[in-house]
């Protein structure tokens, strides 16, 4: 662009732009980008840098170790289970909540206010609230099922592998569902009422309307919900930590990272596993971004 020399307005804009953007850029560069690079460098060296050893370059050995480590493999499997279960529950239940709360009714404002509470609470607190439900000795779930004679003796809910993952996922979904529901609700709100009127005139009932109008038009919202749900589930940590600690049967990748790095003080392998998880996250993110673009065009 040909800009006359000595244009003070343009120069002022340049300077102000830099001055205003600098604090944000500097903070992020110093505390996100630099540590990331630093961490990556540690992940291709041997030994724990915590102890000031002189570690040597080992290439991708740490990554290979982690991939072949059975505990890590279990953690990956668990994480996939959390992910699949959480995301499918969130999509189905989120759709249910959104459709229920879409139309105006008396008390809708109250229900919407109550709806976001689980999202607003710290996930650690969610875990604390739910813990009594699953307690093996005197939990509410056991108590209820015993009273209803569904089970004959208390069940160790968090001890069995598959079951524990289901219960932890439930707690996770409790906190994420409000967000997913709001995304769907916003999507529903953006479908013009005329589309439904027109299809009613054409003789479509509520179920066919849902199938042929609502679902297709909600595809962009679904892509967003899927992305948000995946990113939150793939790095699940807080709920597991509170409900079952670092127990092997419910260990997610991130719990495994925590355990490797801070319990076993093996920073190199911990960081390598963290970067593998980050890579997986990026792949999911990229795929969803593609899906999102396709569904909005």
């Amino acid at each position, binding site marked *: 662009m040909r*800009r*006359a020399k000595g*244009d003070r307005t343009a120069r002022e804009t340049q300077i102000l732009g830099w001055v205003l953007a600098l604090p944000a850029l500097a903070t992020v560069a110093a505390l996100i980008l630099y540590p990331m690079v630093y961490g990556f460098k540690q992940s291709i060296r041997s030994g724990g840098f915590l102890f000031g050893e002189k570690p040597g370059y080992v290439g991708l050995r740490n990554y290979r170790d982690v991939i072949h480590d059975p505990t890590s493999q279990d953690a990956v499997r668990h994480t996939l289970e959390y992910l699949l279960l959480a995301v499918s529950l969130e999509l189905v239940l989120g759709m249910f909540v959104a459709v229920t709360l879409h139309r105006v009714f008396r008390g809708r404002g109250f229900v919407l206010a109550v709806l976001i509470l689980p999202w607003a609470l710290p996930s650690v607190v969610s875990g604390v609230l739910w813990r009594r439900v699953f307690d093996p000795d005197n939990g509410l779930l056991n108590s209820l099922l015993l009273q209803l004679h569904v089970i004959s003796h208390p069940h160790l809910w968090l001890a069995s592998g598959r079951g524990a993952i289901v219960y932890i996922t439930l707690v996770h979904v409790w906190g994420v569902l409000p967000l997913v529901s709001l995304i769907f609700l916003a999507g529903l709100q953006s479908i013009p009422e005329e589309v439904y009127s027109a299809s009613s005139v054409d003789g479509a009932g509520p179920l066919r309307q849902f199938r042929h109008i609502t679902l297709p038009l909600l595809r962009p919202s679904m892509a967003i919900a899927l992305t948000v749900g995946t990113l939150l589930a793939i790095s699940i940590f807080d709920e597991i930590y509170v409900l079952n600690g670092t127990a092997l049967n419910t260990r997610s990748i991130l719990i495994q990272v925590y355990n490797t790095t801070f319990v076993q003080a093996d920073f190199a392998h911990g960081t390598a596993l963290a970067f593998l998880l980050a890579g997986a996250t990026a792949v999911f993110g990229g795929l969803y971004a593609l899906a999102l673009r396709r569904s909005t065009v």
Partner: protein
Amino acid sequence: MSGTISLESVSKQFPGGVLAVDDLSLEVEPGEFLVLVGPSGCGKTTALRMVAGLEPVTSGEIRINDRLVTRLPPRERDIAMVFQNYALYAHMSVRGNMGFGLKMARLPRQEIRSRVDGAAEMLGLTDLLDRKPRQLSGGQRQRVAMGRAIVREPAAFLMDEPLSNLDAKLRVEMRGEIIRVQRRIAAPALYVTHDQTEAMTMGDRVAILRDGVLQQLGTPDDVYDSPVNVFVAGFIGSPAMNLIPATLSSEAGDVAVSFGTTRLSVPARVLERRPRLAEFAGRPVTLGVRPEDFAPAERGDGLANVTVDRVESLGSELVVYLDGGVGEPLTARLARQATLEPGQQTQLAIDLNRLYFFDAESGEAI
């Protein structure tokens, strides 16, 4: 102490190459109200924003009150601007809005107070001074925007379609109001609009812009009576001038123009005024006829053969749409007495002294 606004060969090229304003030169004289008018996208707002300093100038110079301001930031240009959507400061009261510029200029509090009170009085805003903009009607917001501009006592006024968000009745009222205020302040004003009625009723002079190029600059009567080209002819005036593809013929010094089955002989006086017209004999021209220059046949002069298509009564007069055998429908404004029925084939008189001729190829007036 009233000054001028002058643009000398000002151009604006946006990144990407679009030439929004092309070599625009014009001068707003002391105390003058000059209207910059044109269809949307013609570059008029860009031109105004360059004068304000909100848009960098690609080339050319801008002077306000003989002071070179081309590269000065807006705050150093000593101007005031009224925006299309008023651009009031939503978090300040009316008084705060009007006094903001004075506060920035570090005027003493007492002075600010009295100036704001004075302007509020002039605009009938005295009772609203403590309100917030969202508590005001559209017309009141418009007045506040005006008030904010005048308390500054600027060297020049800039207005960007300030009336386009108002309803029709209020718009007519505010036209008069703006002119009245500007006369009192006596600063030169550059006013941008797409509405030719606003341009004609408000402007001391009117500048017509198209695709960034100045077409014509003159008093409203000038541009109405002597449009320099087809564009200006068609843009100024409502209903718009009929622009009819026609042929010019010349037999033994008798010049005639024909379209459809109509043949009109051009009076000698018109030929004197337009000496070049004779050169166009035998060539296609664009004939311009203002709707109000039609009259019932008995009034004499040249007669056009037309078929009545549709008649709209405006109460005071009739607007008649006609088929003159030229493809495009013709529009005529007739007194209410005229009795015309749709489908009727008839003859209408055309005031031959008020015919306009344009080169069919270049569109320039002949």
